């Protein structure tokens, strides 16, 4: 009898089709640039690696901060925070997670070589001290109310595996040992990322046995793959297809406003900008240093047209660095109104009555409709006299050249780019985008235009040291107003993100745009 039962079990196991293995196949629009959690502060990287690694403080889908590897946190004095680390957390290899790992992560994060956009901002200015294996203290020179927000941006790596490990060691999987719900099995750049369930996960058994991430760059191909059942879940449903897919009975869509802004960064540090020429092709002084020119370009952009015609309604015209619904934004700011005549007048006032020639660089396929937005903006600029050519580059090439292409300096003159406020509030955009570029202080880490305003820097620093929420929000709002008055950047729109999944799966949209297997549940 027992033998018969065993046989039956064996037979059942042998016959079980692979479909019974709970595998979730995910179609990605943009693939991560590395498996090193501190190499590149980029949404596809942070999203992907959230499966393998974890943060001390995690962000819930609605942008609220929740305990992660830190069970609780509190301030001891104005400048000292105490964090209680979660016990019984094990790395994927079974070794225990302790305070030493956190201290190691703090040392490693700002010092990854060749990082196109580092995590220095989250770590700089903080002194970390181990109290015991599961308690740490972090102190700052001034009060720092954003401590939990900063920590919600930093993935913790294991000291044992990360000591001396290079980015390549994470890519090969050797050092990619995390505490997260899934283990990295294989990373084949350009083709796939495979993960397997971490059965010993402290937060309970994860839902999916296996994960397969496939980068499918082209929108229609991604949708076709979902319709055909090749993947179960896709990010960035092309805006052109949303209306039609809503009626598709086999699929379920979910949408949410992003904490990202799509904007333009302008070269404001070189006297001769490499991609700007006079109308006759002659060399001219960099016009983007003149606030009037920057404002003219901003007025030349028809944001409503971009939202309605290019984004097909799935976006919100932007007035500042983050949508109104987020902390620290200014209610006073409205999107700069489309005013081609006013723009021409401003250009003439600045000494460019005939405009100039410029090349707009942007990524192809990093942000929803990025190439089309660039094309539409090029049209609008050309109409106010700024003859604009566009060049779209593969995202990895684009970001590296846009950050460090010209001998460690940003290479381009005018770029289309996006920024997700990784702290979930305005200082997370202000500090890296319009703060003065300073590696030591960790400000301006993504300031590819090198705009610099000491008054604004001071305001941002002041906000970061203000413990009172209402007061901090007010200072941040003022800083936003100042940045917009200087036209430090030109905001275009805030995207609304759309995920698609096969029927029977439920996807929770996330403001941080992460595409996570943890957001997908079976109905």
């Amino acid at each position, binding site marked *: 009898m027992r033998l018969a039962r065993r046989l039956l079990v064996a037979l059942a196991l042998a016959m079980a089709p692979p479909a019974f293995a709970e595998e979730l196949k995910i179609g990605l629009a943009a693939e991560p640039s590395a498996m090193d959690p501190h190499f590149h502060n980029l949404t596809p990287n942070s999203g992907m690696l959230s499966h393998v690694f974890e943060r001390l403080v995690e962000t819930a889908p609605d942008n609220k901060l929740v305990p992660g590897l830190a069970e609780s946190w509190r301030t001891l004095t104005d400048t000292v925070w105490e964090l209680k680390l979660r016990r019984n957390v094990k790395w994927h290899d079974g070794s225990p997670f302790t305070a030493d790992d956190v201290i190691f992560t703090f040392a490693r994060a700002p010092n990854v070589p060749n990082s196109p956009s580092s995590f220095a901002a989250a770590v700089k200015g903080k002194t970390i001290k181990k109290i015991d294996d599961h308690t740490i203290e972090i102190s700052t020179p001034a009060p720092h109310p954003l401590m939990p927000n900063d920590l919600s941006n930093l993935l913790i790596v294991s000291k044992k595996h990360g000591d001396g490990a290079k980015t390549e060691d994470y890519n090969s999987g050797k050092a990619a040992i995390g505490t997260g719900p899934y283990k990295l099995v294989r990373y084949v750049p350009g083709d796939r990322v495979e993960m397997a369930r971490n059965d010993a996960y402290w937060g309970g058994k994860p839902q999916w046995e296996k994960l397969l991430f496939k980068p499918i760059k*082209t929108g229609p191909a991604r949708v076709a793959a979902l319709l055909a059942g090749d993947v179960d879940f896709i990010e960035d449903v092309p805006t052109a297809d949303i209306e039609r897919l809503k009626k598709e009975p086999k699929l379920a869509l979910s949408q949410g406003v992003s904490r990202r802004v799509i904007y333009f960064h302008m070269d404001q540090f070189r006297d001769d900008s490499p991609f700007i020429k006079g109308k006759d092709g002659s060399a001219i002084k960099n016009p983007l240093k003149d606030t009037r020119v920057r404002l003219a370009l901003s007025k030349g952009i028809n944001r409503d047209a971009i939202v309605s015609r290019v984004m097909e309604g799935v976006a919100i015209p932007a007035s500042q660095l983050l949508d109104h619904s987020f902390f620290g934004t200014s209610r006073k700011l409205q999107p700069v109104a489309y005013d081609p005549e006013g723009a021409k007048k401003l250009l003439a006032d600045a000494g460019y009555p005939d405009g100039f020639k410029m090349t707009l660089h942007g990524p192809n396929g990093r942000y929803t409709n990025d190439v089309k937005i660039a094309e539409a903006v090029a*049209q609008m600029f050309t109409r106010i006299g700024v003859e604009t050519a*566009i060049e779209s580059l593969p995202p990895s090439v684009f970001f590296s050249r846009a950050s460090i292409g010209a001998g460690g300096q940003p290479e381009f003159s005018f770029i289309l780019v996006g920024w997700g406020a990784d702290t979930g509030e305005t200082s997370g955009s202000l500090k890296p985008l319009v703060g003065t570029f300073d590696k030591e202080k960790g400000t301006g880490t993504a300031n590819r235009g090198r705009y610099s305003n000491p008054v604004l820097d001071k305001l941002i620093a002041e906000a970061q040291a203000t413990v009172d929420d209402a007061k901090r929000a007010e200072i941040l709002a003022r800083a936003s107003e100042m940045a917009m008055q200087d036209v430090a950047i030109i905001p275009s729109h805030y995207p609304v993100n759309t995920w698609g999944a096969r029927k029977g799966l439920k996807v929770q949209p996330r403001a941080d745009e992460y595409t996570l297997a943890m957001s997908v549940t079976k109905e």
Partner: protein
Amino acid sequence: MSLATSPAPAAIDGKAVPIETPLARFVSDFCESRVAVAALAVLVLIVALAVLAPWITPQNPYDLAQVDVLDSRLAPGEKSFKGPTHWLGTDGAGRDLFSAILYGLRISLSVGVMSGLIAMALGTSVGLIAAYAGGRLDTLIMRLVDLQLSFPAILIALMLIAMLGKGVDKIIVALVAVQWAYYARTVRGTALVEQRKEYVEAAVCLGLSNSRIVFRHILPNCMPPLIVLATVQAAYAIALEATLSFLGVGLPQTEPSLGLLISNGFEYMLSGKYWISFFPGIALLVTIVAINLVGDQLRDVLNPRLRR
């Protein structure tokens, strides 16, 4: 040109042909196929439309000041907010598709013809030299040709474009690099045959210079297969350019050729906006089919073995 070296036989199709020059014979042979004549007519029309595009299109689709994103994705026959009707609709950037197709044809045809001519000149010279010089040089050149032909054309073109960058001139360079080997191999084969004929021997006896023998005597007799190859290659070059543009490595986004127009419209295929890809696709298809039909008939007419 000494296209026909043998005396022309009397016309056998019953039509009276009073005086038969080689050209008249060629024309009448060509006209035997109605399909080919129709294809030629279509081709002439396409070329004329492409050449005259700046004068007959309602819009210059490459002038960003004339294109408005507010007009994007209008269905065929819909009116622009400015007034004019877009009979073939508009693409995702608001370009009038009729204008964009004609301008795209200009690029496609000129790239096809230019790259074909340069590749032909280069390949023919190399092939003739190989055939006439023989020996080690011949072996060297032909192994180079073999090597080149063993790589997929699209791969070579993609690599070259990646190295050179975007632009019409770069596309032409890439297409020449891909095509010259075909010409070299064809010409060498024909030239080897021609070389052994008596007229070459006679020319050698007369003490004519090598270059004169090669270019004035052998080359003209190698022309028929070259003409056929040129038509086939032109169609191929156009298709390859479209492929490169479709893959997004060819021409700038703001100056789309047919391939890029199709690629742009491809995004909207699933949402029912068929026209953005469909019409440029049809234009590309018709052009290539027309060239191929004309080329087929040329092959029949110029092939001595098929001559009755």
